[in-house]
């Protein structure tokens, strides 16, 4: 083979093995600063108002091991107002809390959140507590088949648009160690229902050897509904699905400031 031809072939081969992956240096990356991430779920059924506050971590430029931290922001000023009084939440052990003895969460009321941090960030949000408590759950079992089936039933609240979420856990016994453990399960959030009310039924196959169950039904406000829906999609992305942004009602921030009413059943 002529040397020039050999050279040509080598050049061609070099082109082929030249990697097709490289750092994308020809597009301008979004410049992102950390945002405050709020988690606050107001419920008249709880005794405390609890708020979590963390920061998002910009992906680009950061070291890959430093993202996804749970570090709470401890030094923020957090205020919740019900329109007539404004109260500060106190930081304690990773959470900001306020007793409902001081600021009760009342059905139908509008609450406003304002947070500011020493570094000059501030976020705010508003939500309205659902008017009605979550309907009572009616749970029945069917153990005739090979599986244990449970039937979940509740009566929709008439004359309201409601957003429900059902979840629960079953207590299992480890067959080797006899320890007990809990297994959680969730149901997809029901779609927005009309104002007519009506019955809602669902069916689920359970472990036959469970010792005990806890069931919860949430009657959520629209913010939690949208947030929860996007959260379920976000954690459910397939290979070819695109990234799903999470809903947030926090102005200048992330997370959710929302409200719900909950009903709970423990069996047995």
């Amino acid at each position, binding site marked *: 083979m002529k040397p020039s031809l050999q050279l040509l072939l080598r050049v061609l081969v070099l*082109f*082929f093995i*030249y990697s*097709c*992956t*490289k*750092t*994308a240096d020809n*597009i301008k990356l*979004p410049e*992102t600063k950390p*945002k405050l*991430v709020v*988690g606050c*779920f107001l*419920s008249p059924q*709880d005794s405390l108002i*609890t708020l*979590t506050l963390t*920061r*998002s*971590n*910009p*992906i*680009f430029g*950061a*070291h*890959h*091991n430093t*993202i*996804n*931290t*749970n570090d709470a922001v401890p030094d923020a000023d957090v205020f919740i107002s019900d329109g007539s009084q404004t109260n500060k939440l106190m930081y304690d052990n990773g*959470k900001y809390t306020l007793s409902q003895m001081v600021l009760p969460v009342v059905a139908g009321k509008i609450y406003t959140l304002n947070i500011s941090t020493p570094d000059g960030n501030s976020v705010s949000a508003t939500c309205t507590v659902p008017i009605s408590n979550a309907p009572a759950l009616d749970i029945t079992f069917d153990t005739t088949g090979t599986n244990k089936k449970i039937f979940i039933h509740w009566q929709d609240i008439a004359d309201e648009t409601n957003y429900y979420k059902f979840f629960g856990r079953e207590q299992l016994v480890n067959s080797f160690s006899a320890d007990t453990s809990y297994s959680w399960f969730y*149901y*997809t959030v029901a779609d927005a229902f009309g104002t007519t009310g009506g019955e809602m039924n669902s069916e689920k196959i359970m472990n036959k050897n469970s010792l005990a169950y*806890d069931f919860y039904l*949430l009657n959520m406000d629209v913010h*939690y509904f*949208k947030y*929860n829906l996007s*959260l379920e*999609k*976000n*954690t459910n*992305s*397939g*290979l*070819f*699905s695109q*990234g*799903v*942004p*999470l*809903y947030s009602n926090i102005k200048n921030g*992330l*997370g*959710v400031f929302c409200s719900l009413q*909950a009903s*709970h059943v423990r069996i047995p």
Partner: protein
Amino acid sequence: MAKDVSKKQIVKYKRYFIIILFFVSGYIKAQGPGLEQKVSLDYSSIMLGELLKKITEQTGVSFQYSTNFIDLNKKTSIHLNDVGLKEVLDYLQKNANIKYTLFQQQILLSKNEDTKYTISGYISEKGSRELLIGAVVYAPQHKNGVVSNNYGFYSLTLPEQDSLLLHYSYMGHQTISKKIKLDKDIPLNIDLDGSTDLEEVEVVAEKTNKLSETTQMSTIEIPVQQAKDIPALLGEKDILKVVQLMPGIQKGGEGSAGLYVRGGGPDQNLIILDDAPVYNAFHLFGFFSVFNGDAVKNVQLIKGGFPARYGGRLSSVMEMNIKDGNKEKIHGEGGIGLISSRLTLEGPLCKNKSSFLVSARRTYIDAVAAPIVASFNSHKDTKSSFGYFFYDINTKFNYDFSDKDKVYLSAYVGKDKFYTKNKDQSSSTDAELGWGNVTATARWNHLFGNRLFSNTSLVFTNYSFFISLEDKSDQETSTFKYTSGIRDYTLKSDFDFSVNLKHRIRFGAFATSHFFTPYAIAGTIKNTTTPMEKISEKIQVFTEETGVYIEDDYKPFARMKVNVGLRVPDYSAQGKNYFKVEPRFSCNYSLMRNFSLKASYTMMNQFVQLISNTGIGLPTDLWVPSSKSLPPQHARQVAAGIAKDIPKYKTILTVEGYYKKMYQVLNYKEGASFYNVNLDPDNNHAFSWEKNITSGRGWSYGLELLVQKKSGNFSGWIAYTLSWTQLQFDSLNFGQKFYAGYDRRHNLSLVGIYEIREASAEKNGITLSGTWVYNTGNAITLPVAAYNAPYYLAPSIYGGSSYYSGTSDYTAKNSYRMAAYHRLDIGIQLHKKKKWGERTWEISVYNLYNRQNPYYYFIGQDKTGNNVLKQQSLFPLIPSVSYNFKF
């Protein structure tokens, strides 16, 4: 010489025009007192001029006429004694075809235009008798003409004339001029010679179907030969990829043959091969289209201003016709390329009556790789093999029973298959994934009289996708197969009625039955403890689509042509009926010679929809019907622009603006995809496509520019598109509008083909070609930050809330842009005439300057462990070589 003739014609025509103006300004039906004068005429044979003189002598009445239309030498016989002048004139009107009008005491004579005759026939290529679609028949004396239809048929109805001049022309063919005495209906089949020399090309350019003279706008014609000359990825010529180089048409991802026309999705294109819709036009995940250029006669893509005869998709109609097959001699064409080889054979079965065409292509990556894979396995316990291939076969057969009845049968079969086999001593696993189309069309052309052409087609098309698994071991044997697909049966009749020079009416009716199988699984399992168990589940949906249409090519004024039409489809599915009315309108106003303004308005509906969340032509994309909960997609489009022919340079220039609004367009809901659609654990009847998709609206508008030179030594085009495409879905992006992923602001293609030298026995012919493309990068969503998303838990257990870790904060949907895409491909073809025919060596280079265009982005780490955005690109510089032959 030809130019002199046409000048004379123009002068004559002007005179004629003046006479017409006279009529318009003072039209009074002759009934003045002069007409009562008595005349006696008794001649067995007298020339008209002489006869008129005699009348003048007897009555003193003078006649005005143009010798262009009144033949004074024409002989007639007359035997009328002592009758009124009116009776004489009536006699002449009846027997000599002369119309008379009284105008200011003079009698104006003109030709009686009420007598009309029709010239009709088929236009084909000399040597092969291949029928030519879109050939022009032009009558210069009438400044008007017609275009042959999809079956090469034309029909032209004109007033009686002693010397009618007709030009027959077709791009790249010699023009034939015929002088005809039109005094009866004339059947006239014409063969045009495709082997032109330069001088004749000049004539052709002057006479071919001028863009500035048709009402049809937003239409792209791809000369098949140009498509074959343009360099291609791995040397695989691909018509769809050539179409992507035209304005208003965007490609999918790198190397993909998918089409996004004026902001429409890849499902909104109706791709018809010999009347049969092809549902999946792609091989190998969209890198190649299923159309083999050797078998294709013509390609036309309409992206707006749709005539009423087309419908069923929102954004484009791409019509392809397979060659009929050479009727005179056996002819072959083929090629050997890097990944596939192809062969086309055509020839007469019964000379000038019947012909056939068979064209086939197959890849051989699997065959080449097999020994290599085998050598890897030679010393292992587990033998593995894998492979991939695709093939396609086109066949066509036709038979001419007479000039009134012709029958065409055509079929297409194509398939893609991936397979793997694993085998060890105790077990084996076979897995396959494949998809394919089958289409078959039977067509019958029938001519009623010589002005009404009809075609009736019976069409079958089937697309199917499957995944199959077979596991065998000593203990257990199991099989599983998933299939999805769509099957259509269509019966349609189309009529083409050439009424006169002002009207050409097309009408027709169609009925289609769609059988959708969005989901079918079948499996068996058998093991040592249990007997054979079978599972089988299938969802099938049957829908019907019927409709009628009518359209008229109408020329109300000399400068204006319009196409008005109405299409009325009716669709029923699962008890729900959709009845739609789609008005269509397009017009052409000629501002000056070779320069016109065009405008159009169309309304379209689409009843079958593709669910795809990838847009890269994966076979997993699923066709589903419109239903109760999924109303049909709907679009309205207006377009306006200019068309300019520059015959001197055989070049056309078009500039068009369009605005399109789309309703009920589909998208997967956020987070849903093919995979979790089928594997939803909470639902045993897992498949419900309606749950996983959402419908919304789309807006697209833009400006397109095309300068195209279709023939000559140097040909090619410049295409530029400036466009915007936005979508809005209530359940995506929190209901906010966003730019579609394929919204690309600028799109530029430069295509050049230069034939340096024609091939001869001694010397190689050389053709150089090159394309350069540039487009704005795709719109994408980027993750910008990570955080832990809180959610509510029972307060008694976890204190009220917990976290989902590792969720991402994204930019607004599709608010970021990938880097711009650009690429240069070049090719050289060396042709040589051989004793047996012609051979061509082609060497081409894809992506000459090795641009690393991003295919997708991902988050990776740099050397220090910091996160950076990385890009994966697909095709670096890729040289290829192929050998092609013709005989």
